[in-house]
């Protein structure tokens, strides 16, 4: 096994009647593909954190006037930023794909009289909405429309 789990994991409410060996974590914790996917999914949290603060900086610049805005936009040309944004894009797509797959089954089977559509349809709808929003935002921000 990979290593010790929390020493109290799955411990009985009152101490067991004989000495027990402490719980171990499964050894697949590092090797299994599924687990790596899950860890990466959680790790995208860091990226989301950073991109949000970067965005706040940009909006502050936007509020501060044209010079600040132009300087901020200029700074984004730095290869480090570009690399970070590439990473962010990959993360966002990865989050979307994994989350959209897991989302349908987390829908309650019925909320009062309402019943959500079947899983595959929700799954498809999520993609449609995502593509739609992305296409629209891209077009607007890139100055193609509006």
């Amino acid at each position, binding site marked *: *096994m*990979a290593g010790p*789990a*929390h020493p*109290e*994991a*799955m*411990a*009985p*409410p*009152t101490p*067991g009647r*004989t*000495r*027990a*060996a*402490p*719980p*171990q*974590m*499964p*050894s*697949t*914790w590092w*090797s*299994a593909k*599924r*687990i790596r996917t*899950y860890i990466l999914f*959680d790790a995208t949290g860091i990226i989301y954190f950073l991109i949000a603060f970067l965005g706040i900086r940009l909006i502050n610049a936007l509020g501060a006037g044209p010079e600040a805005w132009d300087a901020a936009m200029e700074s984004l040309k730095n290869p480090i930023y570009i690399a970070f944004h590439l990473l962010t894009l990959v993360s966002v797509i990865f989050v979307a794909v994994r989350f959209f797959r*897991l989302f349908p*089954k*987390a*829908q*309650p*089977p*019925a*909320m009062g009289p309402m019943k959500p559509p079947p899983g595959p349809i929700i799954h498809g709808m999520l993609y449609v909405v995502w593509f739609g929003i992305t296409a629209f935002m891209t077009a607007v921000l890139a100055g193609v429309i509006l």
Partner: protein
Amino acid sequence: MVEKTIIITRFDPDRDEKPRKQEYTVPCEDSWKVLDAVNFIKDEIDATVSHRWSCRMAVCGSCGMMVNGEPKLTCKTALSDYDDRVDIEPLANFPIVRDLVVELDGFMHKFESVKPWIIRAKEQAEDKASLHPEKDTFGQSTEELGNFKQFSMCINCMLCYSACPVVANEPDFLGPAAIALGHRYNLDSRDEGAEERHDIFRGEGTVFSCSYANECSEVCPKNVDPAAAINQAKFGTVIDWAKGLVLPRGGTK
């Protein structure tokens, strides 16, 4: 017939400071499940190996073990799926009582704490002595049954607890099977206890501790999909919590 090396985790609290591994060479039939190899060792090679099993048909839930690092129902897992070295360990994330036997009481406690029974303000059948099979049973459509049927298929094998990264680290976490069970009753059209259980779900070991690793559902031998149950339960819990903010509930049972 092939010879395989079966490695078994041994731990005897009277003798061993901590678990150790022991290897056995076992002549295995092609049709064997992993459990058959352990039973062979117990019967023919080393009678001191301790493990739990009973039904050998994947329904009693006692024979869960780690096989090459993954939680498996050993009576359902073909030995031929593995190479000639098979590492069999007690279920991960549980205290080890002895050899392949783990401590169940922590699980039973969580299981019981979700109130896994039909909660009603008033019982359906008033007079038990003269119950009538049609009048006094609840009507339930196949669709209503379908809402919770999947979550009622849990055999309490606890593989999901061995797979869940949160269980490994958060002792309070109610865990997949227990929450799925509570949620199964919440979804049952005969039950009226959802609010009560949602309060439990928000307490220690809350449903929100689940980070949707989905490992529980991946390893579940009965396709219960506890990850679905937990994440549905989150919705229900949030809704009841919000309702509670708007109209404070006086004196819940």
